[in-house]
């Protein structure tokens, strides 16, 4: 129904809800993954390009 926040009496046990908060949490997780393991799709595309170049040279 409502969160009542009396003057000066802080809340310490609520968490942000809603789509925005959830999307932000997922974004942070995805960025953490990229930081840990790198951007696999981009890496894969670069690998394919270089492979294609070498394969072309070998012909």
């Amino acid at each position, binding site marked *: 129904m409502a969160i009542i926040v009396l003057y000066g*009496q802080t809340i310490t046990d609520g968490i942000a809800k809603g789509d925005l908060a959830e999307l932000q949490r997922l974004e942070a997780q995805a960025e953490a993954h990229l930081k840990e393991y790198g951007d696999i799709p981009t890496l894969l595309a670069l690998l394919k390009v270089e492979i294609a170049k070498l394969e072309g040279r070998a012909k």
Partner: protein
Amino acid sequence: MTDTSRIESTIPARAPVSVPEGKPIRYRLEQDYTQLVPVHVVWEVTLACNLKCQHCGSRAGRPRSDELNTAEALDLIDHLAALGTRELTLIGGEAYLRRDWIELIRRSRANGIRTAIQTGARNLTDKRLDEATEAGLQGVGVSIDGLPELHDRVRGVPGSYDQAIDALRRAKARGLAVSVNTQIGAETAEHLPELMDRIIEAGATHWQIQLTVAMGNAVDNPELLLQPYQLLDVMPLLARLYREGEARGLLMVVGNNIGYFGPYEHIWRGLGDDADHWNGCSAGQTGIGIEADGTIKGCPSLATSLYAAGNVREMSVEDIWRHSERMSFGRLRDVEELWGYCRTCYYADVCRAGCTWTSESLLGKRGNNPYCHHRALDLASHGLRERVVKIREAPPESFAIGEFALITEAIPGAQVTPMPERDPAAVHVAPRQRSAAGGALPPSLKPCRSCAGYIWPHELTCPHCQADVAQAEALHQADAKRRRALIERATHLLAGVMTPQLEATNG
């Protein structure tokens, strides 16, 4: 000292209540209103204080001469538990200057009540923190009103900022939930961005913001007060910091005198859940304030002279809560007691002029509140603004109020157009069903999905942006469905890649 908290209560506590996931335990359920449950109790356990705050409403310093003794205090906790209290905040003065404060914490926790303290943190030593943690204390809210120079000046003690920040860190290290409480006065706004950085670094997870109110020492120092028109600058700043804080793990929580129904209401009142919005002062409906001598009020901040509803030494807290007229005013009031701008406002019946304490302390009569963003924006659109000027001092007592004049004037350089005449009879009044216990649910609004302003449920066209309400809602639902699908997909995908990471980390 005898540990009387180990004497078991003979009063049956209520069954535990669950609140929706993510909501704080003080979240009000419908049954809290209908069954008249004092969900959150704020208790000034002593008026003794070791700070000298220039804005202190209770003029704390020395203890009251007749503060409740330990047995009386423990008995009061048991009675609150029986009434259904879910959260107890111990304040002062400074709560830990009361010698039996650990016993009070232990008894509150034994009753299943979430228990926290709100503190200035001066001399909140390791020993005190250890004892409180061992007794079951769950949260520590530290008051910090700006960067060091401003904080120390307002709090009246050099070095108090450093002690406050240090206490945050030490409480966090003990596993306590830690939050910061900041009052906004005339000088505070420019400190907020850097203060946010500092409290995040110190480990705070929640940051409560409210406006300094014209009571007690603040009446003696009116230069500390924000002027109502300054909300035009402060509110966008708060909204920006809310977003930045959210992304950095700090949840800003706006207090009851920040409002109302301006462009940011849907963002922060429900901590991101736009179904929640301001729905009026809760004094005497779902909350209780207690003074150290056992005086009971509907809200801890209200003026003692006007709202002392009884004393637990003379009658039970149950009887005061259920039957005192000074407690029940909030359950019975209606739009007829509003005046000035608030009387004819679109939100009159749900808002009831915002925080009773803020408006009454300022103007000497509740029901008209210039500290309102919706109102400040409306006035500004007509080239007008409001400011307050002190016309009467406050007496020396605790929780004493003075009086301020409200001045409406042209914004320098702006073109003034007259405010429209609004008919008081045209204000929408929502019917309220009163329960057998005497409580009633406050009305609920819905957000317009076009402009995000709140509107009454019967509206077909948004009175703020003139959008077709149903059409905007349909578009919103389609957007929401798409977002939920993305969230589901991302959650599934990341669960697969994050689990090995966690396993590797845990190793």
